[in-house]
């Protein structure tokens, strides 16, 4: 019985995988189509845009934006936001170079609390605060429009460490 169940499960899984693969490739096609229009600034509906401001340690503000579902790391990468060394591990939770500091009220409103793995990485960051998060773990929602986050100083004298 167990064996039969396993075989059945495997069959269901492979069917599902094939279905997902199909959907995915359709989606990719759709995505490439739409990105083509995105670049022309047409299809991006106003309500999907989330404006974000990055504030450097020296107070300089960098205004940028992403769409709902993007991570803050995506926003930096997609818009070429000028932050040296940001996102070294490319969002795989193995470095803390995308460390960002939130205002307390914004931090409390974030839909997901940091997991152990994120906190482990944050523990290695400079200027760690109680409202620190990794940008790669923050997914933009519509409520976040107008969000302002602080970027810790990248040029830190590490020799003292």
């Amino acid at each position: 019985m167990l064996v039969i169940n396993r075989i059945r499960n495997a069959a269901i899984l492979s069917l599902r995988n094939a279905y997902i693969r199909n959907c995915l490739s359709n989606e990719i096609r759709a995505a490439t189509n739409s990105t083509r229009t995105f670049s022309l600034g047409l299809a991006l509906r106003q309500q999907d845009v989330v404006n974000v401001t990055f504030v450097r340690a020296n107070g300089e503000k960098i205004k940028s934006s992403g769409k709902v579902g993007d991570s803050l790391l995506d926003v930096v990468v997609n818009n070429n936001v000028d932050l040296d060394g940001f996102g070294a591990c490319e969002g795989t939770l193995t470095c803390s170079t995308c460390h960002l500091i939130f205002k307390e009220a914004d931090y409390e409103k974030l839909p997901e609390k940091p997991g152990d793995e994120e906190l482990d990485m944050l523990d290695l960051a400079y200027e760690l605060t109680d409202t620190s998060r990794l940008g790669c773990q923050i997914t933009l929602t519509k409520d976040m429009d107008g969000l302002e986050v602080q970027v810790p100083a990248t040029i830190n004298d590490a020799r003292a460490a």
Partner: protein
Amino acid sequence: MTFPRNLLYSRLSSLNKYSRNVNTSAVRLQNVQQVTAKKRICIVGAGPAGFYAAQYLLKQLSDCTVDIVEKLPVPFGLVRFGVAPDHPEVKNVINTFTKTAENPRLRFFGNVSLGQDVSLQELRQRYHAVLLTYGADQDRELQLQNEEQKHVISARKFVAWYNGLPGAEQLQPDLSGRDVTIVGQGNVAMDVARMLLSPIDTLKATDTTEYALEALARSQVKRVHLVGRRGPLQAAFTIKELREMLKLPNVTTNWRADDFAGIAEQVEQLQRPRRRLTELMLKSLSEQSKRTATAVDGKQFLPIFLRAPKAISAKEIEFAVTQLQENAAVATDTTECLPADLILRSIGYKSSCADPAINFDPQRGHVRHDQGRVLKEGEGSSVEPGLYVAGWLGTGPTGVILTTMNGAFAVAKTICDDITANAFDTASTKPGFEVANQRIVTWDGWLRIDQHECEAGKAKGKLREKIVDVEQMLRIAGV
């Protein structure tokens, strides 16, 4: 669909108009550039410090060119040869470094060794500024008798062995015994312990060298002791590495309750990173009684605190029991012997002096400097104009990639500041590196090696199969 295409077309045509304008000014710009001498900067060592410094310099100094000289035919230093194979995500920084290397103002010279193929003096004559970032390729010793015996090897060499550093394949560590004792508790020690205890199947998909996989598959190692001189509050490993160890399948972690006497009471006063690490150790300790009952024939990870190495013999290592006095470990008269079929020394790296002209501190194993500016030989604080150091060669072997990145950015900024302040000559014309009777691997050469390695890996279901032989690397690179 036609609408956007039209738009695209009109945008392209306007771009053309624009670029025509750019073209004319670009010609003018080029003429200007030929008049003003380019600032030539040479970086020695293609590891993270070198690449991050190059990234910063190329961005901040639009009129500079950067040459990276590397001893090995292949780039990336400890990202390739240090980072554990089961941490492939950490190696994603290679993508950033590759972007830097593709900058037309950067040249890569692989297979060029400072002190052998080119002298520091020569480089300083050929460049306005030289930045040394060749890292730390030696390790600290225990200074004990019998340390040179075959069953005592350095963790650095063990890491180099499984990571395929040319020359390290000769190591052939003896993994036929049950007990391995690692002296030291840093992340290198943790990496080595994890490699020894991980199920072989999880390593097979990584870029662990084939000969190391074969040896690890035959390994009889069942218990890995990880011994530190100080207590749990001074543990040098980071929490990510510990959490990983605690999750390893078929491996039981056993702490010594005595090591944690009085620790729980201090947790509240600790800073967050230290507090979380200590809490994780205490939690694991409290769950211990349940674990030992379930896993009997699995492997064991045994962290041991407050023990300083004292004597090495054939099958064991003797430790002095220590006491903490103002954060330092002080040996008592009490001793303890631990079984050790293999001893791995993991108490830190140090750098070597590649060229006699470098102001090198042999005691500390790094270059003497002030804020990255290399100091002149002898007393006093005057600096060598145009000579800099960054990364572990300057700071000593501490910190994660973030630390090295920030340090390298800071030294690169110092170079920019010094140029602005005219602290060294940038007005004269400098020839840069010239190729003479030397088999040099360019960036394109590396890309050929890279492609070869990735394809060889793919055939075996691995991320990459590293080439270990320098001669073979050179052949594939086409030199």
